[in-house]
């Protein structure tokens, strides 16, 4: 199954014809299952991803992002980074795909607009972690609960997060993470960062939030383009900034950008 998905993925990255998109994508349930790993737990690198298949497609695409599961073959960019600052290198690349150590240790604790425990209670199940980052609550949720929580955040009287300022993704080397920066037109000082973490680097799939915020359309396309994340249910998932025949996803940390 995974093998098949894998080939699909690379076919899709070069294929931009809109109408063929939805049918080619595997059912949502399978993909979300990968991302359902509990927070902090090692990334499911035990997922049966045959090395052979990856290498085969790597040769085909030429610039496939280095997988986190092959730490023995570091690519050149991280090596450069390491030379420049050995001290920071360790934290920049969390080992084994674990979430980086609790962040914000040195950061000033600005109070957020809502008590984090209460926020967790209000959002219900599916919340993996809640943090305070410079006064902004950062909520990490499970992929399969994303749509429910997003809708709640948009519609609930307490939140009214009807303004998706932007949506982006972060490559934590062993896994990917999508980040939704929320704001409210009604309470403009309220910010909230919604995250779906621990996405499989080889086949990252997240439900698209375009049905909740239409503003997500282009940012999701951008994240698909530059990070290679598949947004299930996106009406028009094509490359946005790069040419249609571009190979690879440049914002991945392991992207080999030397031509």
């Amino acid at each position, binding site marked *: 199954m995974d093998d098949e998905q894998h080939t699909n993925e690379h076919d899709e990255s070069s294929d931009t014809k809109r109408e063929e998109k939805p049918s080619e994508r595997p059912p949502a349930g399978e993909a979300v299952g990968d991302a359902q790993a509990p927070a902090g737990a090692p990334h499911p690198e035990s997922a049966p991803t045959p090395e052979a298949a990856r290498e085969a497609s790597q040769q085909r695409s030429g610039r496939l992002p280095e997988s986190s599961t092959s730490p023995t073959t570091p690519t050149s960019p991280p090596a450069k980074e390491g030379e420049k600052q050995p001290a920071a290198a360790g934290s920049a690349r969390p080992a084994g795909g674990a979430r*980086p150590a609790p962040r914000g240790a040195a950061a000033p604790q600005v109070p957020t607009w809502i008590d984090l425990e209460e926020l967790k209670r209000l959002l219900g199940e599916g919340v993996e972690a809640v943090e305070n980052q410079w006064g902004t609550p950062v909520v990490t949720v499970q992929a399969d609960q994303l749509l429910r929580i997003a809708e709640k955040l948009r519609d609930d009287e307490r939140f009214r997060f009807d*303004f998706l300022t*932007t949506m982006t993704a972060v490559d934590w080397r062993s896994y990917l993470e999508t980040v939704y*920066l929320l704001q409210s*037109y009604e309470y403009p000082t309220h910010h909230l960062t919604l995250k779906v973490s621990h996405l499989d680097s080889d086949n990252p799939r997240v439900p698209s939030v375009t049905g909740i*915020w239409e503003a997500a359309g282009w940012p999701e396309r951008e994240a698909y383009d530059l990070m290679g994340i598949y947004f299930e249910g996106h009406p028009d998932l094509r490359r946005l900034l790069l040419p249609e025949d571009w190979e690879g996803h440049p914002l991945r940390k392991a992207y080999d950008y030397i031509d």
Partner: protein
Amino acid sequence: MALRTEELTFSLGPQHPSTHGVFRAMVTIDGERVVHVDPVIGYLHRGTEKIAEWKTYPQIIPYTDRMDYLSAMLNNYCHVGAVEKLLGLEIPEHAEYIRIIVMELNRIASHLVWWGTFLLDLGAMSPFLYAFKDRQVILDLLEEISGARLTYSYMRIGGVKRDATQEWLRRVDDFMDEMVKNIQGYNNLVTGNEIFQSRVKNVGVYDEAFAKRWGLSGACLRCTGNSYDVRKSDPYSLYPKFDFEIPTRTSGDVWARYIIRIEEMLQSIRIVKQAIRNLPDGPFMGKAPRNIRPPKGEVYFHIESPRGDMGCYIVSDGSDHPYRWHWRAPEFANLAAFPAITEGVNIADMIAILGAIDIVLGGVDR
């Protein structure tokens, strides 16, 4: 009477007089009516977000200049402000006042370019040159203080690059008086014109719910009656100390966006004049560490750019360069709604709507 006619698909841009750079749209038309628009962007994509991951925090400043090149000061501030928020730096009031002066000057310059090019889109040649004449004065002033006409790189983490002289402040003040008169002249030349009004009124209308769904900001949002402006709604810098208003309209058409931007220029002039009058003494550079290594964590800092809500999202891993650096360009979000606004309009209206969004492709593509 609905006649059956053949649809025609053509490529508007990237080399087209009204796409302000390298925007391209695949437009399907039926006669003069736009059936479908598919924007194609990325011609100016330079991978700024990727580059930023390899640069130290101060090194990123010049790259922000080159994104939305019409509001480089504000881009500088957005990045610098985000880093300062990460570091928890205190900025001297004097520096913050000078920042506000240059940012508002830059906002006026940006709106002037918009005004000129928008009218060029509508087929009026002369306003473009009027606008650029006034903009040139502002660019000269900004060049004098920063050393560059467009790519200022004037902000520093902790302050600004150079202090403003009294003479410079006096000239800015004088020009602001002149600018008020010039804007009156613009209104006489264009705003009351019958043909102009017939081109912009009731064109590209959408309501507040639409604007919210698409995450619009700036004049594109305020034309629907919402008064969301980061300077007032989620204040940053020293804006709460200033007395200014956020112009809004409720008609939601191109005309509303036009009037709002004209009025915003006047409000910016007010801010600049207040800042010059109340400028406190003090250093122009705060106590910033020489080696900038923010603590681990992530921060989102947003400001009001001439085009809307501009934000910078930084994920720091504790090193001297960001682990991930993402830019929220307001024109990117505003442009995303373009196909939805233009469906079914006239070709000429489509151009007017595109012009009223106020896109800068350097910002859209990043």
